[in-house]
């Protein structure tokens, strides 16, 4: 399967001043499981729909291999039915007046596949998806999870090279979601297809994707492997969007900083020694924080913050610890049973390479 290439793609709705998608460049390689991740309204669904041809871009171009699907400059627009892609919607969009079999066979019927082959291919995908026994039922007689499988079967029946998935798991309960995630991963391996997946669920993106594209306000924030995005967020938005509990951000304000902020500021400046950037804030992932007794000698190459324990929240197998430093709440997580108790004075220690430094614009700076 060739590469999907989005170049300077923009979408501005008539009567709207802001662009839903603003000159987006994105390349989805063959065999990628690309997740487009972002808060609602960030333009991820619009982008997916433009790839599908259900929306027409107002700027830029989209091509698959050397076939141009959209080009505003050249006046090219290929209708969705001619793009040979598959799309699964958030609401599944099964046709309520057709049985499961009819739904599954629809695409084959349009491709003029003979009756016998049609039926055997439909059987095959229905069995793969575990819905073979519902073949003669109507969608409304099926549960949400089963409907989702039908929607996938309907797409898989025509085996499109590019599969587009628009938040396909968001209507499912958490157990089914886990099950379907495994299913999607299996489909990706078995069918060796390129998948573009839209979600606002960071967990889903982290577990499924080979690469993640983080979007906000119609712009691409960062693209990379899940580990990349998590460990080296390019800006404060990406850092804050991934991770639960969210990353602790300590901002450096001009007016008389609290002692821990001043300490953090000094630390950040030392880290940036020699660079021209001015640190605006630092971010610390909760799992990077070690909790130590206040008597512990400060480590040479680490940021330390004196704080007191505010609350300890067990989350089953791990603990979220809420600490307060100069009136500011910081979160730490640990998988070791904590020995401290609420009210204890502690010292929070973060290894230098685990401190993310951002400049005043919120962009990542520094060596790590």
């Amino acid at each position, binding site marked *: 399967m060739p590469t999907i290439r989005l170049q300077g793609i923009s979408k501005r709705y008539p009567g709207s001043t802001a662009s839903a998608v603003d000159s987006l460049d994105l390349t989805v390689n063959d065999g990628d499981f690309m997740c487009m991740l972002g808060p609602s309204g960030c333009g991820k669904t619009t982008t997916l*729909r433009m790839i599908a*041809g259900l929306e027409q871009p107002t700027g830029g171009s989209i091509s698959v291999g050397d076939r141009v699907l959209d080009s505003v400059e050249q006046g090219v627009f290929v*209708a*969705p*039915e001619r793009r040979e892609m598959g799309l699964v919607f958030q*609401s599944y*969009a099964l*046709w309520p*007046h057709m049985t499961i079999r009819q739904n599954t066979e629809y695409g084959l019927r349009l491709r003029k596949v003979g009756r016998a082959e049609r039926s055997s291919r439909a059987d095959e995908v229905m069995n793969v998806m575990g819905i073979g026994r519902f073949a003669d039922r109507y969608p409304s007689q099926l549960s949400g999870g089963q409907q989702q499988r039908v929607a996938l079967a309907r797409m898989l029946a*025509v085996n499109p090279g590019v599969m587009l998935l628009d938040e396909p798991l968001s209507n499912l309960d958490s157990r089914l979601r886990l099950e379907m995630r495994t299913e999607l991963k299996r489909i990706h391996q078995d069918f060796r297809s390129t998948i573009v997946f839209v979600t606002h669920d960071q967990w889903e993106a982290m577990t499924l994707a080979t690469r993640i594209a983080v979007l906000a306000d119609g712009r691409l924030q960062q693209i990379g492997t899940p580990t990349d995005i998590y460990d080296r967020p390019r800006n404060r938005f990406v850092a804050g969007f991934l991770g639960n509990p969210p990353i602790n951000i300590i901002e450096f304000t001009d007016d008389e900083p609290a002692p821990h902020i001043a300490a953090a500021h000094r630390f950040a400046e030392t880290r940036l020694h020699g660079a021209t950037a001015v640190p605006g804030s630092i971010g610390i992932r909760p799992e990077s924080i070690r909790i130590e007794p206040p008597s512990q000698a400060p480590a040479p190459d680490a940021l330390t913050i004196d704080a007191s324990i505010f609350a300890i929240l067990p989350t089953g197998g791990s603990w979220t610890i809420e600490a307060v430093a100069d009136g500011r709440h910081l979160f730490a997580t640990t998988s070791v049973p904590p020995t401290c108790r609420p009210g204890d004075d502690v010292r929070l220690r973060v290894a230098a390479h685990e401190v993310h430094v951002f400049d005043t614009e919120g962009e990542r700076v520094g060596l790590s």
Partner: protein
Amino acid sequence: MGLRRPTTAIGVLALILFGYLIAVPIVTMLVQGFTVSPKDTVVVQQQEGSPTSYYLWRVFLSPVAADLFWRPLVHTLLVSTCSVVFSLILGGVLAWLITRTDLWGRRWFSTALIVPYMLPTWAFALAWTTIFKNRTAGGQPGWLESIGVTPPDWLAYGGVPITIIFTLYFTPFVILLLGNALKRLDPQLEDSARMLGAGYGTVVRTVVVPLMRPALVSAATLILAKVLGEFGVTYILGLPTDFNVLATSLYRSISTREDGAAAVIAGAIILIGLLSLWVDVHFLKEARRFVTIGGKGAMDRTRALGRWRVPATALCGLAFVLSVVVPLGVLALSTVMRRPADFSADNFTLDYWVGHGLDTPAFTDGVLVSGAVWSAVWNTFWIVGLAAVAAGVLGQLVGYVVVRSPSRLLGTTLRQLTFLPYLVPGIAFAVAYLSLFAVDRGPIPALYGTSTLLVLIYMVEQMPFATRAGISSMMQLGPEPEEAAQVAGAGWWRRMAHVVLPIQKRALATGVLMPFIAGVRSLSLVVILAVPGMDVLTTFAIRLVEYGYTQAANGVVLVVSAVAFGGTYAIQKTMKTDLGRGLGG
């Protein structure tokens, strides 16, 4: 139990009330069809009141059966089938243009094309006769006849104009029903077909039309049911050439005091109504499988018409001109002209609106200065108004009982009983009221000729809508606010007065105003019940039509149209109600 006891008591009272006002009249009337009436004891050679099949024979088999029943039946079926087909086609195309394309002025059209539905049907009939009336009928000639072109009878009267008028009248109804269905249709259903390779035509054929089928069937049966009871149009346009449908045949039987035959015909009309409703329910049951989860509305679902944009807009414009501008324009013009189709300046006058001493002996004053008109206006407002308020309040109470009553039987019975008038065409219902209330029965005096009877029948006729409005608003309310008040120590009456009714204020207002508008336009319901001196606007207009006073009749019908249109428009603007529901008459 404290919550429930008054509910049950109110439910039982309502059951008794509607039992007497709905079930009993219908049964009484049907019984008349099978028992000898005093007038026919000699013919039938049986005692008065003894069971007989004479009326069945007379309506279905006798030599007069063709005139009495079969030909009117054929006419009814023909007219209704044709108008259903035409309005579905026209309405379907217009609905699609309005909801799914980049038609010019679609917002404006989406309101403008609904206007005909807010007017009384027979206003169109009067406009038609004003233009096409030829020398076959007496009175002032039509415009065409006056300029020397005699329209043929088939164009001036009978099936053709009736079908055209019903088509124009019911097209908005189709636009509303199909337009709503199209709007509710999840666009992702179409998108997913396109993703699988279906072109636009294939999507429409395999996805959109099958999913619209319930709405189409619904529209068809509802139109059919309404045409069945529709009296005014055929009365005005059928009379000169003796073109009858079941409703007018029924009216004729009543006016010749053939009560038995009338009862049989009314029974037949009810039966056809039931049949069409059964079809509707059957299909709706099937359609319940189609319930879909709505997705996020597609952002761009209108289709560019390209070079069809101009013709499509022209088509909508033409529909508006033909169904609104021309009829209302003709009616309005005719009321300010002495002689038809004479457009010289001295032929124009405002006498028919504000003059005195006109040369029309039975109606010598202008419409706006005539005491008779104002008395009819007053009657219309207080009779229909009272009935509408009663229907609205009772509808809320019935809704409350249906939703809250612990007895399912009580709720279901009440719901179905109050829905019954929907199946019974207005004119048949009027016949039923005539049979029941023409004489004293026990403690209830004869009500024929009184305003009470008119209030009752207007109210009962609107119960299906009022009840449905009540049920749906009570369903949305949920028991919690009331339970909270109960926990706080409020008794049933206090809860009703302080919690339930205030919350339902809006629903109640709709439940009162919509029946009011429908009642103001309604003719078939009261045409055989109103007596001179107790006229409402619609029956008064029909009397003027019978006199052949074109200007006055058209003037009065314009007043009715103005009230109905203004009222509906105001309701729609202030309440944002769905026009597609409950605008009967």
